[in-house]
């Protein structure tokens, strides 16, 4: 009697470039689930699809089930099976569990240590569980993956620091103002990077945003998209003292904020610091403004350097995280093996359907 096996097959950003991942993206999750539910010998399965990966986790009654899953996926996506064979990865048993641990922890992400992936894995699991396609094995593997991911994020620096320019800018503001709920943000310029940074501020709780620029229609459109007010570009210096954070990203050939204007603004509001984030090239703020008391000026290079430092700090944590996750995967595997033996052919019917959803999940 052969033993049932846990497996994962899939493709990710490691081997599949963007144009290939576009074709790998699951068109119809429900259709794919229906196809997989019909695969003979497949007792449990879950589908994880993000912009960087497609992964199919399964528990098969024998080693052949994963080949059928791969064939079903390629057929549903109309993806060339030979091409998929070249880019896909395939992991079995404990290695499959360890892979899920690393994915959930952000170790396998393009942006190392990012948090979004954990939510995506949870969504994938919830979807599978609610449709009754997970059982004793996958329930345990996914739940342990969530615990492991939480553990490494809490006890290592894998998620510490920000690694994108916009998020570094927001983090900087938090280092100065604490909560951003009461901070007033002025965005000078309507470029993509300025708008992206403004969105990052908005997502972190900045309620009072204003946009200013030379092109009035574009300013109105950006302000509308952000739910922000507008400020006439000619009033930018006179109204500077109204704001705590100024994000500059104009395409102006010369500086648009003179040191004298910044000095005048800070004198009108001496008790509150002023953070100037200059994302423009050429620069929008006179560099000498950095010497003013209570003024903090950061340009694009400064932010990029901090992002790079944070990235390096995260990379330095990889070894530690992998060791922790490997230890946990070993522990999990010892617990899961008896279930796989029990799931061997004839050991019981596969769990599929709404009733099964209630059977496999741990409390």
């Amino acid at each position, binding site marked *: 009697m052969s033993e049932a096996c846990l497996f994962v097959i899939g493709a990710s950003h490691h081997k599949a470039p963007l144009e290939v991942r576009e074709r790998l993206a699951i068109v119809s999750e429900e259709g794919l689930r229906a196809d997989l539910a019909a695969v003979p010998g497949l007792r449990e399965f879950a589908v994880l699809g993000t912009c960087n990966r497609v992964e199919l986790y399964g528990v098969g009654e024998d080693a052949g089930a994963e080949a059928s899953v791969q064939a079903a996926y390629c057929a549903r996506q109309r993806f060339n099976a030979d091409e998929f064979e070249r880019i896909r990865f395939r992991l079995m048993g404990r290695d499959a569990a360890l892979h899920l641990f690393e994915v959930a922890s952000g170790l396998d992400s393009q942006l190392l240590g990012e948090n979004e992936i954990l939510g995506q894995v949870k969504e994938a699991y919830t979807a599978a569980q609610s449709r009754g396609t997970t059982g004793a094995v996958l329930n345990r593997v996914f739940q342990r993956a969530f615990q492991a991911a939480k553990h490494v994020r*809490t*006890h*290592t*620096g894998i998620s*510490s*620091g920000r690694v994108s320019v916009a998020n570094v800018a927001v*983090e*900087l503001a*938090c*280092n*100065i*103002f*604490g909560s951003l709920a009461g901070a007033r943000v002025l965005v000078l310029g309507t470029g993509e990077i300025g708008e992206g940074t403004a969105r990052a501020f908005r997502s972190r709780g900045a309620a009072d945003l204003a946009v200013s620029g030379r092109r009035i229609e574009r300013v109105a459109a950006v302000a509308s998209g952000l739910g922000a007010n507008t400020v006439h570009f000619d009033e930018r210096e006179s109204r500077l003292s109204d704001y705590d954070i100024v994000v500059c990203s104009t395409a102006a050939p010369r500086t648009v904020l003179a040191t004298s204007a910044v000095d005048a603004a800070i004198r009108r509001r*001496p*008790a*509150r*610091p002023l953070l100037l984030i200059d994302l423009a090239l050429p620069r929008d703020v006179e560099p000498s403004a*950095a010497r003013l*008391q*209570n003024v*903090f000026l*950061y340009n694009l290079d*400064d932010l990029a*350097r*901090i992002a790079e*430092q*944070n990235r390096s*700090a995260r990379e330095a*944590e990889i070894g530690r995280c992998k060791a922790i996750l490997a230890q946990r995967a070993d522990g999990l595997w010892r617990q899961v093996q008896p279930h796989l033996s029990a799931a061997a052919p004839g050991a019981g019917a596969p769990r599929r359907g709404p009733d099964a959803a209630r059977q496999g999940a741990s409390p």
Partner: protein
Amino acid sequence: MLAELSDRQWLWGAAGLYAAGVLLGTISLLRGGRTSGAAIYGAILAGYVLQFIGLGLRGHATGGCPLGNRFEIFQFTAWSAITLYLVVGVTFRSSIFGVFTACLGASLTLASLSIPSWDAIRRTHIFGGNPWIELHAALAMFSYGVFGLLALASAMFLLRHFSLKSKHLGGWFSFLPSIMDLDHIEVRLLGAGVAILTVSLAFGWVYWSRDTSTVGHLKLAATVAVWIAYAAALGLRIGGRLLARRFAWTCLALFAAALLSLEAVEGSRHPAAAQASERIPQ
């Protein structure tokens, strides 16, 4: 066995636990992980309990609040700062503040324990049985504890300011609270310290006004100067004329001056108290 321990042995234990808090925090920071707030808080709390027992034994032996020599004053100041930290420190939501507080507690207690001459002479009944004078002294020392925490917050402000200006945000700088949070903490601590010192001086003034010969001129001048300096700093800060780095540096300088002023207080104990006290050479 514990009952046989002397007050100094309890106080050594307290100093050791405060130092352990510093060590825990430092190791945690060097390893790049988050500081363990609960462990540091626990070490400080345990040290506080031992210090409370030690000071209690000393107070029992000296017949009043143990403020009879420089050793006792430093111990009491550290105890006051730790008391305040334990009550309000958690609201700062910053475990690194615990590390700094443990550092202050360890510095003051270890310094006082390591210099035998500071505790060479123990004075008893220094308040001449007057509870108001005892309250005055205890409140004054408590305000020094508050000013000690203020100095810590100011040091953290300067470090945070340096990190932001020099654009070094990683490492243990990342555990510091924000500039604005630290500024708010500073203002609140300064306000509390000035209020407590004002109440203390009010009690002292009532006693002094009855008989001006009971307080030495040097002590009077030093105490009033400290009060005026802190009150002026508070006024200037509220008026927006002493801000950011200058305010932080001022708070640090004032605490150093306040500690130095204890020399004047120590050197000019009032005659009545001096007569009332009995000296126990070690």
